[in-house]
């Protein structure tokens, strides 16, 4: 069981209108205990209105720089602790802090040669900033490709620090901002294109695909780190997986829930109507069976070959109902849109489905 330690606040810095960063003074005898990997978080304990509350905040400082431990805290609407920190804490206060922890971190080594893709949005920048600084400083040959989403120019946390890093490491650090509601001013007209360069929109599927295409990896050992609020993580991960980024190269900040797996459940004993070789077949699909297997088990001869979702021999058209394909390496997005399915990979999602082999 990890214990809480009383740490003194060294300083509090306002980062944006609704966020601050808090630096802690770690006494030398606790250096070892409070050693951390870039990407990890601290857990803080407060007593607010007589109630004990705990919250975890990612460290935005880097363990390889001579800098105090620092966390970033953005106000959450009606958030008990984030507002308490933003409103009430000041330098010199002591706070109960549990030593750094977390499975979201980069394994940074001097001799590594990698391309790091960093995806962050809003306050998700905190652990990403720690990874960014640590990689750039430690791995002299690695590349970092980062996209950072915010509402507007004013809500970009650590903007000054990011700009300085971009300037200093311009040969191997790419930073793209994407803003969902950018502010435009008359004065923008006088800015150089670099100063006001940002993409419009969120860190969504389009942005992720655009970014990976725009900045392909040079060092082929690529890793993908994602941190942001709400659905941004799951969306980014889905977008990466849709372009075949292997699961074991993707790292997400997750304080609890694990990544979702394909747990799609079939509709039990759904009715299948299949038009095959001039015959109309009506049959129930047993639990756990695909459309193709159901037909084969019934002694029918549907076309098929690989049964792995690859060859498209078993392709047919869905004319009513809904199905789910476990795997599709054969059909294009357009074919799927037109209603084509791979019968070897399809399980029913509705009470009845109708298909036609052409």
């Amino acid at each position, binding site marked *: 069981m990890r214990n809480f330690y009383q740490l003194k606040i060294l300083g509090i810095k306002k980062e944006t209108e609704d966020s601050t960063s808090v630096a802690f003074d770690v006494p030398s005898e606790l250096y070892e205990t409070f050693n951390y990997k870039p990407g990890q978080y601290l857990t803080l304990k407060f007593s607010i209105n007589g109630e004990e509350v705990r919250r975890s905040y990612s460290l935005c400082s880097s363990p390889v720089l001579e800098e105090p431990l620092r966390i970033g805290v953005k106000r959450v609407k009606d958030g008990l602790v984030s507002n308490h920190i933003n409103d009430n804490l000041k330098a010199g206060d002591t706070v109960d802090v549990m030593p750094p922890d977390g499975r979201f971190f980069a394994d940074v080594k001097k001799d590594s040669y990698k391309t790091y893709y960093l995806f962050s949005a809003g306050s998700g920048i905190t652990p990403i900033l720690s990874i960014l600084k640590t990689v750039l400083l430690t791995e002299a040959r690695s590349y970092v490709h980062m996209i950072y989403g915010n509402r507007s120019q004013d809500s970009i946390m650590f903007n000054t620090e990011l700009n300085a890093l971009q300037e200093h490491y311009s040969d191997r650090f790419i930073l793209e901002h994407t803003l969902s509601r950018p502010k435009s001013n008359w004065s923008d007209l006088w800015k150089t294109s670099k100063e006001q360069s940002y993409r419009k929109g969120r860190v969504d599927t389009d942005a992720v695909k655009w970014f990976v295409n725009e900045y392909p990896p040079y060092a*082929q050992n690529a890793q993908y780190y994602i941190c942001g609020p709400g659905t941004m993580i799951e969306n980014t991960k889905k977008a990466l997986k849709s372009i075949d980024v292997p699961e074991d190269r993707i790292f997400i900040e997750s304080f609890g829930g694990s990544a979702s797996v394909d747990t799609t459940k079939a509709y039990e004993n759904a009715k299948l109507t299949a038009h095959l070789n001039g015959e109309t077949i009506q049959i129930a699909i047993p639990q756990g069976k695909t459309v193709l297997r159901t037909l084969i088990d019934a002694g029918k001869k549907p076309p098929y*070959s690989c049964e792995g979702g690859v*060859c498209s021999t078993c392709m047919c058209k869905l004319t009513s109902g809904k199905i789910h394909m476990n795997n599709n390496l054969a059909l294009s997005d357009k074919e799927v849109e037109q209603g084509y399915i791979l019968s070897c990979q399809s399980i029913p999602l509705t009470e009845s489905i109708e298909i036609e082999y052409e």
Partner: protein
Amino acid sequence: MNNQKNMMHTLPVEAYTSKKWFDLEQEHIFSKTWQFAGLIEDVENAGDYISVQAGLNNIFVVKGRDNRLRAFHNMCRHRGTQLLRAVGKGQKAITCPYHDWTYDLEGKLVSIPKKEEEFPDLCNKELHECGLNLHEASVDIFKGMLFVHPDKNAPNIMTFFGEVEPYLGPHIPEELIEYQKNKDEPFYAKEINANWKIVVENYIDQYHLAHLHEGTLNMYDHAKAEFGWAGPHYHFYEPLVPEYLADIKNASPFPLIDKMPENKMGAYVPWLFPNIGITESESAWNTFHAIPLAPDRTLVVIRSKTMNVSEWEYTKQYTKSMTSKVWKTIGNKGKYEGDASDPMASGDFMAEDVYACEQQQKSLSSPFFSVGAQAQKGEFAVSKFQSVVKEWIEKHRNDA
């Protein structure tokens, strides 16, 4: 005379003639180093692939939709059949021609035809958890070139090439375009009747430049050459002769490489261990790949890249170069008088090198052969290279 004890410098003569040494090198050098596999544009789009023989291993490189390259041993896990041919485009999955076993682009086995009927006891897990995925290899990029390594946990490529990197030219090969005389063919490919080390030793021999190539490479100032070793790799630089430099803007056969600083105009000619040279000059950037075929046969493939500018720029430069006075006195002149079909009269430095290599190889089987002496500066690299080969084999033989 006892041929067994006859030495080139550090290596015995039989290292250049015997099948035994050829096999040793295939196993311990060419199957345990980063091997040149092509240029990055060879695998341009998602699903594009190339396959290359790298020592004992045939390895294919494929680009995923995430723009990252993957490398696998080109061998079906069923009965070992090679999966892919030399080059191809747009694959979504890899299917063995023999029995249609199919793998995805991560090398995972995704389908076995008639699995339930024919392989009921194979494995009751998902196919990709059955231990029959493709063997992974490594692929990475160095200076616009693709390299593969048979080990999926290969030592990282920048650790291997890092030491020599500062000695390479300022060229950015990714920005240059390939120069081909015939479409889809390398600039130069020739089987040379000599051991691959004879070819390398010729490439790194500074002493011969002023002699074998007295009329062909005399646009470079051999006396001012700077060369040495960085790790297992050789580096070399020599400036242009003043006469050529003075009229370089006209005399250059191709548009000048824009990254060349005016105060260091010349040729960078490093050799990267074990078998890839680069020739980085004022107007071209070439890879020189020496592929051992047999103890006395080596395939040399040269690919050439030049500035990415319009055909018109090339035409203008060609015209200026043709009329430059520089070429009236230097370059293009054979060592011997005679017909251009004679390599020594051809005025072509490649033909001169090939000739010298083959003439040397011919003598290696003579009982009277021995190396008489070594030029201490100009041929230092020759014996150094031999010791790198020797040490590499000894080290990896002992690891095995």
